[in-house]
């Protein structure tokens, strides 16, 4: 269980996390979603006591992380910055972390095995690929057999097999009753892994809901339209006085319409004798829901 209450963090005059409250429950995978600069990584740093909150609190299993007797047994973390000295071998890195808690070398070998790094355990980390670095980060997170896992972009740089492996690992860890929090910008990945999502935008919680509810709650769904007279149909749809209608070109003879029902488009086409080749309503995806929510919350939008 991770609980944040009124959590706020300012860096100088910039507010990275702004009065955020949430509870992340054990036994399920919770996803942190949000554009860059939304406060995901800062929230994770605050959970681990790496940064001091400007105000508010965040606790892990009921205690401030720094006050826990066996921190690696409470929380295992993979942070965005790799946090490994390039001149050290994977095994030495893990042994150094394990030593603080008296975790035996046997366990170091175990997590190396589990993350598929046994063969390269004695190589210097500086020569690792991004994917191998991620595996080492996950190995470090698993080291203390923690009750909570906090993983910032864990599938970043992994090959498809690695992505599948992480997904299964996280689902398995959650099924054991652990609290699993991951952030990802890959929304399709989140849709397949997370049970619950917390969407952040500009340091605030924009949404906090089970994944099904989250996708279902997206207001706009879209309709794919294909027609030899797509341009005419598009201008007819846009000329009608309707709010919130957007059309997005889809090749030469089609577009994706948002804010319109398929039946309305069909009726307009029929009224003007426009031939339709396709008229298909699209199920709102996590991506749609996310884009809908974070519209206007993007810190570094391209203008």
């Amino acid at each position, binding site marked *: 269980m991770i609980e944040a209450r009124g959590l706020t963090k300012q860096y100088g005059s910039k507010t990275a996390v702004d009065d955020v409250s949430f509870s992340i429950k054990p036994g399920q995978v919770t996803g942190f979603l949000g554009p860059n600069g939304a406060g995901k990584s800062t929230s994770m740093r605050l959970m681990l006591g790496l*940064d001091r909150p400007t105000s508010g609190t965040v606790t892990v299993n009921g205690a401030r992380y720094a006050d826990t007797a066996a921190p690696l047994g409470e*929380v295992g973390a993979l*942070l965005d910055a790799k946090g490994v000295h390039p001149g050290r071998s994977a095994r030495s890195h893990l042994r150094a972390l394990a030593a603080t808690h008296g975790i035996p070398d046997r366990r170091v070998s175990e997590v190396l*095995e589990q993350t598929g790094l046994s063969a390269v355990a004695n190589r210097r980390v500086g020569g690792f690929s991004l994917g191998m670095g991620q595996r080492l980060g996950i190995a470090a997170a*698993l080291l203390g*057999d923690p009750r909570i896992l906090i993983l910032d972009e864990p599938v970043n740089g992994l090959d498809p097999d690695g992505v599948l*492996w992480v997904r299964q690992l996280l689902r398995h860890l959650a099924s*054991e009753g652990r609290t699993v929090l991951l952030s990802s910008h890959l929304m399709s990945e989140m849709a397949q892994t997370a049970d619950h999502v917390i969407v952040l935008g500009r340091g605030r919680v924009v949404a906090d809901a089970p994944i099904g509810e989250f996708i279902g709650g997206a207001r706009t769904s879209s309709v794919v339209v294909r027609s030899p007279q797509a341009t005419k149909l598009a201008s007819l749809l846009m000329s009608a006085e309707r709010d919130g209608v957007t059309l997005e070109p889809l090749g030469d003879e089609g577009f994706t319409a948002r804010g319109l029902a398929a039946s309305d488009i069909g009726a307009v086409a029929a009224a003007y004798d426009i031939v339709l080749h396709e008229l298909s309503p699209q199920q709102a995806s996590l991506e749609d829901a996310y884009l809908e929510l974070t519209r206007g919350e993007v810190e570094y939008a391209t203008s």
Partner: protein
Amino acid sequence: MTSTIVIDAGSAPAQPPTQSRAAGGVARRGVTFGGILRSERIKLTSLRSIKLTLLITVIVGIGLSAAIGLLFSNDMRAAAEGSGGQIFGGGDEGLQYYLLTVSTFAAPFLALIFGVLGVFAISSEYSSGMILSTLAAVPKRTPVFAGKAVVLGIVSALTALVLVAGGLVVAVLCYPESAAQLGTSMVISGALGTVAYLVLISFFAFGVSVLLRSTAGGIAVVAGVTFVLPIAFQMLSMTGWEWVTTVSEYLPAQLGTILAQGTIEVASGPNFTVAALAMVVWAAVVMLPAAVVFKRRDAR
């Protein structure tokens, strides 16, 4: 070529259940200070650059002692035969000077390497991001700071001891008649004074490096204080201002020289004990604020 290693990802998905014990268990032991010391020792000894630096320091240091020993032992022999020489004066005291000069000759230069060691002990964690892993594992930060300082102190002291003891052995090999003076309080205090000086320089550098969080900045400050300041004060002394002389006597390089001479009577300026205390103050003045800042600051 990115990687020739097959990570066996195909079979990996079948493996997660390896960790099927109930949540919790492995790390229930908790953090201990002994564990932190072991962790810091592993960190230092698992870096090839550190091991290489220490090895080169010892080789260069003892090599310099050998060169000086060969040079001065000829002078000692000439003096004993009454044909010239007389750098160190005669008698037991002359032999003690000889021993200390040969064994601590390289210390002022090696001080910089001990400073670099102190800087690297912490700046390497900041530059690589390792500090995040370190502080995530031990979020109560003061034990980490203390553990790093203890391990740095032990490594510096052992290295300095090997250097000075090696220098003494070389001095005796070059001029065996000096062996009888090894146990005198002057030689022992001079040797230990040099060890203390080098350890305290590494602490000073460590503190500076924690405050600056930068390898280049840390080394610049340490080199500035140990090498540049003495020269600057030497030039300032031409002004004839009295405070310039007083301050320059308390710069680390000068204190190191005093400590290397052992407990002898001094005509003016700080004696051995005062010099030792002054060096401790130099280290403490940066270590204490560094400890406070290390505890309070955001880790990055």
